[in-house]
């Protein structure tokens, strides 16, 4: 068992190149994927606007290691995120949590579409009844009509 752990640790150290990584266990594929996904959702607080997955900053490296350790320690994603939030506040989350102050942020897009579609449908309905059918032809239509009558192919629209 000891030898196995040692070899795992060795391969991890080689694989990550993180100095002082001796305290870390190699993650399985699922764990790795979770670590990558989590890192992509968290903000590097000392950078301009980067996720900790993207950043080369020391803090980002440190936080990536932290995620790694916690996943290896059996923590769930939610627990790790909670840990980060207690440490750094909501600012660290690139996916803002849903609460009273962010309700409009999250519901806004759906609201836009809903209002847009309702207005659109009402507009189309009322417009159909309002638009007179005897609108005089535009120049373009008249020309098209002339072309049609002359037997030419009407120029198609895009």
């Amino acid at each position, binding site marked *: 068992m000891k030898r196995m752990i040692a070899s795992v640790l060795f391969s991890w*150290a*080689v*694989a*990550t*190149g*993180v*100095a002082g990584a001796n305290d870390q266990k190699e993650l399985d594929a699922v764990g790795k994927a979770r670590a*990558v996904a989590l890192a*992509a*959702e968290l*903000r590097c607080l000392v950078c*301009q*606007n*980067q*996720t900790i*997955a*993207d*950043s*080369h900053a020391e803090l980002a490296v440190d936080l990536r290691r932290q995620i790694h350790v916690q996943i290896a320690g059996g923590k769930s994603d939610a627990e790790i995120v909670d840990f980060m939030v207690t440490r750094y*506040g*909501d*600012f*660290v*989350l*690139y*996916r*803002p949590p849903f609460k009273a*102050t*962010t309700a*409009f*942020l999250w519901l*806004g*897009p759906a609201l*836009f*579409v809903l209002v*847009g*579609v309702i*207005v*659109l*449908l009402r507009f*189309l*309905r009322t*417009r*159909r009844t*309002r*638009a*007179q*059918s005897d*609108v005089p032809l*535009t*120049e*373009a239509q008249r*020309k*098209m009509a002339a072309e049609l009558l002359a037997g030419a192919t009407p*120029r*198609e*629209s*895009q």
Partner: protein
Amino acid sequence: MIPEIGQFALILALLLSIVQGVLPLAGAARGNPVWMGVARPASRGQFLFVALAFGCLAYSFVTNDFSVLNVANNSNSGLPVPYRFAATWGSHEGSMLLWVFMLTGWSAAVSIASRSLPEEMVARVLGVMGLIGTGFLLFMLLTSNPFDRLFPAAQDGRDMNPLLQDPGMVIHPPMLYMGYVGFSVAFSFAIAALLGGKLDSTWARWSRPWTTLAWCFLTIGIMLGSWWAYYELGWGGWWFWDPVENASFMPWIVGTALIHSLAVTERRGAFKSWTVLLAITAFSLSLLGTFLVRSGVLTSVHAFATDPKRGVFILIFLAIVTGGSLVLFAVRAPKVGLGGKFEIVSRESLLLGNNVLLAAACGSVLLGTLYPLFLDALQLGKISVGPPYFDSVFAPLMAPAIFLMGVGPLARWKEARIPDLAMRLRWAAVIAVVSAILVPLIAGEWTLMKSFGYLLAFWVFAASLTSIRERLLVGTQLEWSRLGQLPRGYWGMIAAHVGIGVFIIGVTTVKSYEVERDVRMDIGDTVAVGGYDLKFEGTEEVAGPNYSAARGTVVVSRNGKAVRTLHPEKRFYPVQQSTMTEAAIDSGLFGDLYVSLGEPVGDRAWSVRVYSKPFITWIWGGCVLMALGGFLALTDRRYRASLAQRSALPAHAASPS
């Protein structure tokens, strides 16, 4: 001397812009042809003076005149000449000058290419552009003078930010601004039409090519920015939903809606008010983008509060432009006629539906970009809104829009029938579904998300093919000779739509199949990524023109055969004491190998990031196709024919066919 000439030229340009903004508009209102006649010479004069000022600033940069504050702060004698030239727009002041340069350029272009337009229209359009110019020239002269002197002159400059020292800096900002500012033409046409009370299809016809042209430049500009970020930042991303990116993306979305809405207004005389509103919005968003990027609110609301001069000026200007236009719109729009009649299902309504989705998408991006600023300003806490948010709201809004994109070109104007459309598109749907299931299966593991991306892409391709096929059909016979007769405007649309499909293929494939390895590599170590073996052969010190670099050598081999050698670099720029990662990329049609050096670990070893990014070039290829589509549409016969007609016919008789 030269900087003073530049400054003087700017002042003269300001005076001319005031003349251009006042006399022609007054002349158009009072029917005074002499006043209206001022518009053209004034706009050309303004362009010449701004060009002169721009030339003076560029000269100061290229000749290292460190007695100019702007040059001393943003350039350095060690900087290679192309970057010194690009440094002209590398600073806040310089980029504002580029903004005005572009504006006056567009305005001069309108003055030249508007011979067939009624005098009143030309006077109003150029008048509005003159007023915009006045605002920006005042802004520069009052708060951001690029020619301010530094006394005593600096020994040497503080250098350009090393991140910007890249060919991308030479080409990306001019392209982006060409697009950004180009929407001022569509805006001015809309305001002119509102002022004149003539919102008809002729107006749409005139502003359409200008809008398309601006949109093409903006597409190219955004694409170049994305590509630049990809190879320069060293972590292989191509879009970060950064507020600065969103600032350019929002006008693009609205511009896209505007292009489609203009098509309906021109063809069918419908949606006039909506089209005008989009034109106002597109330009207002360009201004808002300028405000966001230039005022400093993005870095911190508080930084903005401590030095608010610039921000407040742009904000007031934005309020005047947008508010004024909207008031004018509110007064005039109710009198606008409805245009041609159409049914609830028709090409008109499908295009309008697409517009609603695009507008909602733009609204969401705006919401996500401004929300943290508002929360912070109201002291309700600091939050970050980043890629996870935008990805999860943007994709669901775009998916139905892309579905409609396949249907729209096949629907008839005035009235379409859903059963008929379903019949005609059934094979396209089958092809899309089968490809969506098969492609991820062949490539490996199948997931719903991957499949959905491919579904949209293949839907676009198949629907476009269906559309082309129908155009070639005579009875039941495919008439290939008709291929050459289809108008270029049509091909432009197909190219742009296929571009969207190509783009989606790129995005989906990269997201689904990219491989990232973050490894420590000693000399001789190898790492396997995407079917390639990469062997690290160490680094050597090399000297660049104004930096020193550790240059790595990585040999790429496939099946034991060396195919390529890559040289990622870690550069150190002594003037600004900063380190830059220069990634090495083996780019190909079906994917990139991306290698970037992290930090040295121990004596000879480095931490190295290696990515395999399948199909990533398709992302930018798709954008290029979209822009090409736009340019193709601009060369359509109807524009060329009308150019020929213009010289032969008096203005009002030019046929709007």
